[in-house]
């Protein structure tokens, strides 16, 4: 079976073999986090618009945003089979479909005084409006595994270093030609001040196969710590944070392309995961 094609809305169903492989891949990435002390959590599927706005999500990523709300029952009339609802048909859109899994982690820790360096891993459905849809490469809703570190600047930097040391050999064992490149995320001002510091001191690096980013490592400095009032240490300083993120359907896409079918891709993942697990034991 070939890779599924996207529909006009970017909504894609995974066939059984792809769904099984997604779970295997996810368990590999989750295990990497757990080995480092990450606590697995399950986050809510929607987040308040007001909360994401506090994190500048609508400043930096307005082009990806999707929001949700309930029907306005004062206006709604039963009957008919609407294909769309007008803005006047719905109550104010107070909820958002998150574009990344880690936002919920910072919001969950809002106001927290961390006992020490903290690590959390989550896998969430994430949603992004894209300018085009493309099979498993660009979908409206997809699965993202993230491993998030909160604490000292040194701890969160070390977290990304350890993950890079896993991602690179794992991709090589899968036969993927992986490149690490600095990336600029924010939507606005790409050529201006933000872009300048992003070029000089990158906060995001992507791991790319062909032209497709399948994972990223991101430093946030103390941005989320400040915005969410998350503190650590005796002085109560704003926590630093970083995250390693994996777009699971994108891994499926490049694996299917590299190995030709789901069976071969699954066999390659099994073998690479075994090698990675053995290496982890060897390091312990």
């Amino acid at each position, binding site marked *: 079976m070939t890779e599924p094609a996207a529909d006009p809305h970017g909504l894609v169903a995974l066939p059984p073999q792809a769904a099984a492989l997604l779970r295997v891949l996810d368990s590999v990435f989750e295990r990497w986090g757990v080995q480092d002390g990450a606590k697995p959590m399950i986050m809510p599927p929607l987040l308040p618009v007001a909360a994401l706005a506090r994190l500048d999500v609508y400043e930096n990523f307005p082009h990806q945003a999707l929001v949700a709300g309930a029907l306005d029952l004062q206006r709604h009339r039963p009957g008919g089979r609407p294909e769309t609802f007008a803005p006047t048909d719905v109550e104010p859109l107070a909820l958002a479909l998150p574009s990344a899994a880690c936002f919920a982690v910072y919001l969950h820790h809002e106001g927290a005084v961390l006992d020490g360096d903290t690590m959390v891993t989550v896998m969430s459905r994430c949603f992004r409006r894209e300018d085009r849809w493309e099979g498993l490469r660009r979908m409206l809703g997809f699965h993202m595994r993230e491993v998030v570190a909160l604490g000292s600047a040194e701890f969160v930097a070390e977290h990304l270093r350890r993950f890079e040391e896993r991602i690179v050999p794992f991709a090589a064992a899968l036969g993927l030609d992986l490149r690490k490149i600095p990336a600029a995320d924010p939507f606005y001002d790409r050529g201006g001040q933000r872009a*300048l*510091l992003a070029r000089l001191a990158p906060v995001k690096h992507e791991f790319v196969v062909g032209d497709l980013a399948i994972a990223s490592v991101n430093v946030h*400095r*103390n941005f989320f710590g400040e915005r969410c009032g998350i503190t650590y240490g005796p002085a109560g300083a704003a926590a630093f944070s970083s995250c390693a993120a994996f777009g699971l359907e994108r891994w499926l896409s490049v694996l299917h392309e590299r190995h030709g079918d789901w069976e071969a891709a699954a066999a390659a993942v099994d073998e690479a995961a075994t090698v990675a697990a053995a290496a982890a034991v060897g390091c312990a």
Partner: protein
Amino acid sequence: MSGTPARAKLVAWLRERHPEAPDFGPEDDLIELRLVDSLGFLEFLQLIERLSGRGVDVETLDVDTFRTLSRIEQVYFTTAPTP
């Protein structure tokens, strides 16, 4: 925080932009602490240019030069500007 007049002016600029920030010293990383962030970086460079009388070429600059007050002082304020 004591130091040169230039350092005092840099600190005053940073304090004005980040009144909420905890105390910071000459060796603290201004970029990691986000006292100088992506939206204020060019203004910070312009302030250094104005105070030191030296130009900063954004095409060739090394960001590590601007990470700490002590490094900025060392590079921009301890020797005379090139005529």
